[in-house]
């Protein structure tokens, strides 16, 4: 997945947008999340382990959508937070569409 530049670019946007919401809320600071470390760690981890969400998807189980992705959307929209997170919205829409297929 990380070898596909289009996917990697989208994942970078997802990270940046979620990081921006966390910074605005005050729960993290700029520089706490190191994307290069995350990508290199993910490459080695993903070679050994598949995340639980695709496992659950294939098994027809409910996915942890609300407290992983919808919560970010909800918090970004709070008054005085108001962070634009277009990639998170786009991925959320496509995820819901995929589940309903």
């Amino acid at each position, binding site marked *: 997945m990380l070898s596909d530049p289009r*996917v990697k670019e989208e994942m970078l946007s*997802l990270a940046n947008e979620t990081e921006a919401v966390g910074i605005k809320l005050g729960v*993290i600071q700029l520089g706490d999340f190191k994307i290069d470390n995350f990508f290199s760690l993910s490459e080695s981890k*993903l070679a050994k382990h*598949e*995340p639980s969400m695709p496992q659950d998807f294939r098994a027809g189980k409910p996915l942890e959508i609300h*407290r992983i*992705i919808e919560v970010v959307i909800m918090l970004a929209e709070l008054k005085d937070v108001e962070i634009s997170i277009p990639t998170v919205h786009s991925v959320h829409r*496509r995820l819901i569409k995929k589940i309903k297929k």
Partner: protein
Amino acid sequence: MKPSQYSVIEKTSDGDKQDIVFLTAKADNLLDISYQIPPLLKENTIVISATNGIPPWYSYLQNETIGRFSFNTKPRQIFINNVGAERIIGAVIERSVQRLGSCQILHSFGSGYRLGELDHKSSERLLFLQDILQKAHLSAIISNDIHRDIWLKLIGNVCLSPTSVIEEKI
């Protein structure tokens, strides 16, 4: 662990009061599960909330950060009413396991937990938990800001999990 050392119950009302309760369910089920917790609780029971994502209690005691924006929401009230805020230890799971079959678990990497009090202070019970987890050969890092650690893990989950479903590859 030998079968003689544990038991499995269907309803928490069939179980005894516990010293420690680990909540490791799917994040979206945490609120529903909280209704089943009270029968397991005694005065000093510790409840370790160790799910992915943002748990319902997350804004509690965080009036300097997220609590400024996200107030006493209904899910937070329900969870805290059922569990008791003073019992909760926040946690991030730092190990990956995959169920391969009914009796087979693949442990890929990582070995334990990151644990923290909701007020970010150190405590005797954190040291107690660290000690017993380490005796069970699980790592237990004490966090001085569990909210930060939960959000950092969330960023990773937002990046990887939905994308791996949409793209159907890892």
